[in-house]
């Protein structure tokens, strides 16, 4: 039992890194995705092309490759620009998830009936008033399910940073596995990911419930 608690404690320590990566990614990538979607649904051509390039490149290449690129590649392209391992991972995750959120928000905004814009226009609202008061509140409701999906994927994707030797859940489990020739740490890790994702699911369920009052 002692041994189990000891292992679990070490893996839980990794869990704080996982959580830190998860929350910081969410906090920065959601606004990034939102701003990107506003740019992509605007009428400014250059912004649209920029966003198109951004989302195509990021969504079209593996996240793992992007992690390698930011950590090992950027210092070669920009000598002297070397991020710490965690920061390199965080930057990659923010850019990567931001790109998916751009597309999710864009889809949400464009799924709102054009009659909503017309009604707002004939009532004298400006574009920003229409977006803020009419379009975005309806968009949030529609993008909650896909965002929940992304959040669940993100919990699991944090395990990828093991390749940079960051001591999160998976790496700490693996250390014990190699040291003691037992697979129970993997089971503890699996349970931890399950619990984390259960929390994510509950959180989004309550949000969806709150937004379901109007239909």
């Amino acid at each position, binding site marked *: 039992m002692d041994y189990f608690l000891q292992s679990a404690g070490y893996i839980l320590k990794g869990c704080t890194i996982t959580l830190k990566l998860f929350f910081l990614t969410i906090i920065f990538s959601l606004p990034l995705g939102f701003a990107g979607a506003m740019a992509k649904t605007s009428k400014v051509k250059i912004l649209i092309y920029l966003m198109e390039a951004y989302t195509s490149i990021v969504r079209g290449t593996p996240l793992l490759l992007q992690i390698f690129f930011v950590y090992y590649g950027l210092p070669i392209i920009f000598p002297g620009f070397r991020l710490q391992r965690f920061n390199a991972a965080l930057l990659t995750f923010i850019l990567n998830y931001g790109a998916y959120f751009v597309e999710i928000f864009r889809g949400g905004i464009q799924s709102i009936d054009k*009659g909503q814009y017309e009604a707002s226009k*004939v009532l004298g609202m400006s574009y920003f008033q229409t977006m803020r008061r009419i379009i975005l509140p309806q968009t949030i409701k529609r993008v909650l399910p896909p965002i929940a999906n992304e959040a669940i994927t993100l919990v699991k994707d944090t395990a990828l940073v093991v390749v940079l030797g960051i001591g999160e859940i998976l790496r700490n489990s693996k250390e014990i596995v190699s040291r003691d020739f037992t697979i129970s740490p993997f089971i503890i890790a699996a349970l931890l990911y399950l619990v984390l994702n259960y929390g994510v699911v509950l959180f989004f369920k309550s949000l969806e419930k709150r937004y379901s009052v*109007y239909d």
Partner: protein
Amino acid sequence: MIETINLCKSFGDLQVLKDVSFSINKKEIISVIGPSGSGKSTLLRCLIDLEKPTSGTILIEGLPIAEEINGKQKFIKESVIQKRCRKLGMVFQNFNLYPHKTSLENIIEAPLIVAKIDKKSAIQLGEELLHRVGLEDKRDVYPAYLSGGQKQRVAIARALAMRPDVMLFDEPTSALDPELIGEVLTVIKELAHEHMTMLIVTHEMSFAREVSDSIIFMDHGRILEKTSPDKMYSNPDHPRIKTFLDKMIFKTD
């Protein structure tokens, strides 16, 4: 109140409005009838800047939102157009209520954030309007829980909340079940009794005849005839109108 001169609108190669000239005076009620695709809705949408005319002039209370001078369209700033169009209110075929707002919130949204009146007066105004369209008991209900007729009555109240000088109705009953049409027409008739200036695109022939001061018949993007309801329905100049009305009246009455 509103005047158009040689108004033309094309979508690509398709000419939807061809040299439409007409005017509506204060307290006048005009119905626009005609077959589908004759340009009725497009005409209405041009008046309130939901479509930009290809050429021609539109004056709202004497001030242009589109102006043709010597064959060229004059540039008018969007903010100016928007301001001039505020004299008009519009009711859509599909209501276009805000689904995330209750009946009352739908009505007071524009007074609050566009006209910027204080919340207390806005709520009072909203409740008055709900009473006027007979829906005070639906004050805090979301549109999803309203019938089509109730939705359209809220939409009418919402348009009235901005105190427009002219109300435009774009087929206000076309999306409704037959038994719900009456309640919406009743509300519009009450507005008629209060001498609201109205331009109504409709397929309800007997309603048009009852409330209108004059009726415009449109076909293929042109105004074929503008005349009194009695003349339109008994003895129109164009044989085309007679054929259309015979079919419609047989169908609706």
